[in-house]
């Protein structure tokens, strides 16, 4: 496993990964979050564990070349699996997730955007759709 990244670096790589996937209109990105228990190096305050965040592309059938740099991995993603991870301490969770949500929103451009005008024009029964503000 590659060493954990800092938050800035993680977000940078993640947004690259997401936008790359969106541009290709192919592939997938897996984001995992789990509590980090009994691991040295993880700070634990009042029974609230740190959170481990991982991001990978689904490129599993190719070898994971550990000794190559992150940039190189992203550059020739075709043949290599991208693995990113970072640790969020309990105090940083809120700030982290604000940025995380932002990065995801910008990166996941392949999802359906809300387009009220087009929907209204097209659908007769579109009223229900628009209620969600």
């Amino acid at each position: 496993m590659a060493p954990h990244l800092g938050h800035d670096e993680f977000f940078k790589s993640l947004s690259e990964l997401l936008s790359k996937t969106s541009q290709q209109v192919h592939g997938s990105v897996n984001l995992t979050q789990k509590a980090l228990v009994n691991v040295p190096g993880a700070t634990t305050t009042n029974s609230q564990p740190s959170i481990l965040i991982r991001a990978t592309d689904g490129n599993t059938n190719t070898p994971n070349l550990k000794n190559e740099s992150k940039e190189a991995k992203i550059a020739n993603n075709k043949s290599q699996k991208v693995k990113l991870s970072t640790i969020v301490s309990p105090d940083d969770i809120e700030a982290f997730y604000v940025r995380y949500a932002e990065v995801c929103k910008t990166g996941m451009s392949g999802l359906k955007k809300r387009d009220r005008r087009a929907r209204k024009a097209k659908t007769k029964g579109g009223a229900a759709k628009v209620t969600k503000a």
Partner: protein
Amino acid sequence: MPYLPTSQAYLEQSAQLLQAYPDTTRIVTKYSFPTNRRGNIIRAQKSQARKDAKATATGGTTTTSAPPSTATATLTLKTFNPTTGICLHYRTNKLQEVGRLITTLGKLAAGADVAGLGLSTTVPAADVEMVDAPAEEVTPAAKTQGQGQGQSAKGKKKGGKGKR
């Protein structure tokens, strides 16, 4: 485990699962585009054929549905606890939901309980409507309505909506 119909149901049940097993439960968020695997293509074709048959039967003009170029990605959220084998799913393809979902995942990560998620009662109402809306439009496809259907089928449904 089935896909949950609303994000609120998913998030609430995830909160309960995380409370019960805070150490082992993990949340996976998958952002993916439909693949070109054979099975997926066949499923999409079948669903398209069904839709076309239905459209012609009802006398609707078949001006083809969503062109393949507008293949939308899906976001699948999964809360999994390996020790109990409990797995909760939620799937969406709406960009507008991403922000709220991720922020709530953050609250879950911070150990919030169901009440602490701050999901107002207006949210499920809106979600339910959004889930129901396509069902009304595509009653013939009611059978295929299960959320476990392929993503391509979903996309087609949306296309079907547009042409009415």
